[in-house]
């Protein structure tokens, strides 16, 4: 469906920012991130979306991982923001606010 493609395009990048934002407050493990993001209906972020993104963020050195003991089962991988991740997060938040204000204005039929 064409609409689904557009929604996917629109959501692209947003989930990256959402993950960085969650990790800004404290380190979290993958399942926790999936569960928090999954509770936001609009984000529609399942494990199949979030885990590959976490892998990519790690490859881009925006996050790093450590293993922590888990109360259930084997140790869990916790994701932390790196210094680069923190700087990128601040930059993305600035951009997001500007973009969001501009889009709201356009969607409400306004002009510059």
């Amino acid at each position, binding site marked *: 469906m064409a609409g689904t493609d557009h929604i996917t395009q629109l959501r692209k990048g947003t989930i990256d920012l959402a993950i960085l934002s969650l990790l800004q407050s404290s380190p979290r493990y993958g399942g926790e991130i999936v569960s928090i993001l999954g509770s936001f209906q609009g984000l529609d972020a399942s494990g199949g979306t979030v885990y590959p993104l976490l892998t990519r963020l*790690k490859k881009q050195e925006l996050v790093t991982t450590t293993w922590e003991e888990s109360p259930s089962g084997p140790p869990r991988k916790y994701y932390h923001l790196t210094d680069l991740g923190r700087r990128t997060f601040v930059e993305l938040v600035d951009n997001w606010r500007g973009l969001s204000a501009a889009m709201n204005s356009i969607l409400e039929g306004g002009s510059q």
Partner: protein
Amino acid sequence: MTSDTWIRSLESELMILSPTVRELVLRDAREVIREVGDDNIHDVLGDPADYANAARNAFVSEKTTDEPQAHLGPVTVDFRGLTNSAVRSRLWDPTNPRIFTSKIFGIGWDINLGAIAVKLGLLRPDDYDDEAVRAIPPTIWRCSTGYPVVLSVIAACQTLRGRSSFGNALLAILPTIWSQRAVPRTEDALVRNAIASGAVTLAVGTTLQRNSRKTNGSTTILAGVVLFLQLLLPVRAGLKQLWRTQKDTHE
């Protein structure tokens, strides 16, 4: 920069696009240049590299290696598995919850063994990465990569003794050579080795079954189990090593 130089720079940056799309982008750019004039090219269109980048983002398909090369009606088709490591990785992708994935080489579907391991609770979706593969203890890695080599030798001996066909020996030897050519200790080397292990098990098992005149699907199932274990066990060993190392560091 003149319009000719700007267009030539843009053209050289757009080689990744198909000729039709490239011509479309160049035609649009030429039209804008005609409107704004040579002097204002840079102000209006910016740097050719940036313009090309935007055009590439707009036109290059979002198709990833998760998706098959083509469809035959509802059936998926992909023949990139021998040459493309990202396509091969679909066989073992714990981050992807879907069990059925497009065949990595051929028509139809393969099973994502990574999803099975996660569903069985043997692995967490994000446990597996290159770090876990690099941490596989050398002895386990040698045993794992030695398995297809040993079985290939057995397959070759079966052929030399006339107990097996030449084709069966090739089914064992070729994947083994292909797997041993992989750079050591990468995610792809692990997947290649598992594929070769499955193939040699199938080749040797088929010969043994034929010689004992029993033919049933057990060899195929056994080959599948070997493939699965050749992925799961080394990764689990690598993870245990990682946990141990981190624990020792903390203490």
